[in-house]
């Protein structure tokens, strides 16, 4: 079909439409307030050592990864990208964790990744509630948080286990698609199957949390 060949593809977009859209985007990325904030901080990833990695270590290597922490902010500002910069255009949590009244997460994010625009998407795309903020917490603090019904949305251990191993939005981390430049986003450093097995073993063992 005639129109079929005219759709935009990552990497081709700007060449098709000329200078004006480039100026539009340039004016966006030059907006000082967009870049004036510091990137998100997370507890440092443990340095691999010769000691055997525990199930807790594997779980936390995933939960402290940017694919997870970017949407568990402590300041109400979603983060983006591999450098966890604040979401462009001053997007914030809003009253229901999905942005503002008319400009919401799904103004741009749909139920699956968009390979043309590089906009990520998954079912129930939203920020984690403020009580589930992880940004800046240590691994031990995150572990205590996810097991605390006052902070985890009233979930039982079984429900937390289900959320961590079966929820589509959580598992999106292993299928994060491409970014706006068409480059694949980084996945958590533990394979999905390995992570799921480790989480199940950790719960079966009684969710042991190390002292430090």
């Amino acid at each position, binding site marked *: 079909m005639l129109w079929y060949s005219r759709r*935009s593809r990552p990497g081709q977009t700007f060449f098709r439409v000329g200078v004006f859209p480039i100026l539009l985007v340039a004016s966006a990325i030059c907006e000082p307030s967009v870049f004036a904030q510091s990137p998100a901080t997370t507890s440092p990833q443990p340095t691999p050592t010769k000691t055997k990695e525990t199930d807790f270590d594997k779980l936390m290597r995933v939960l402290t990864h940017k694919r997870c922490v970017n949407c568990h902010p402590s300041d109400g500002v979603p983060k983006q990208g591999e450098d966890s910069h604040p979401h462009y255009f001053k997007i914030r949590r809003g009253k229901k964790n999905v942005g503002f009244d*008319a400009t919401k997460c799904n103004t741009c994010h749909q139920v699956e990744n968009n390979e*043309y*625009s*590089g906009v990520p998407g998954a079912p129930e795309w939203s920020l984690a509630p403020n009580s589930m903020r992880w940004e800046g917490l240590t691994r031990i603090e995150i572990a205590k948080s996810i097991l605390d019904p006052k902070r985890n949305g009233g979930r039982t251990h079984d429900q937390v286990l289900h959320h961590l191993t079966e929820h589509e939005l959580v598992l999106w981390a292993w299928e994060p698609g491409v970014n706006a430049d068409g480059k694949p986003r980084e996945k958590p450093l533990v394979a999905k199957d390995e992570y799921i097995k480790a989480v199940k073993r950790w719960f079966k063992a009684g969710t042991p949390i190390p002292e430090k």
Partner: protein
Amino acid sequence: MKISFTINEKPIEVEIDDGNTPLLWVIRDVLDLKGTKFGCGKAACGACTILIDGDAVRCCSYAVKFADGKNVTTIEGLGTEANPHPVQQAWMEEVVPQCGYCQPGFMMATAALLEKVPAPSDQDIDDNIINICRCATYYRMRKAIHRAAELQQAKADAAK
């Protein structure tokens, strides 16, 4: 695949090879509605903003397959020349556009805002109207958004 939806209250069916094709290209190139603009292609600038079931959506980043069964409204369906939408009326009164390219997206985003927040504050406008205007018509747009809210309220009062 066949996809059926209504656009500007008119039921249509399109047949396409790739359901992931951005809805923007179907609107512009298949349905020949050129009011919705292509800006960045990355859901960043907002020039392609339309309404889907009343919500603002950046259709350059919206797979056409998701439109199936939905109600789509573009700038062409917002109002008519004889009976403009309050947003369109306010835009004319405040002489908002300069080059005009981004304005349909702003107007659709504003229409969505007024549906959710009939009398938006400046903060509501700052939060929700995050499109980009290369001509920097933001000052006039802010006035027009407040004026559109007044017109919409007057229209609602008159209908009572």
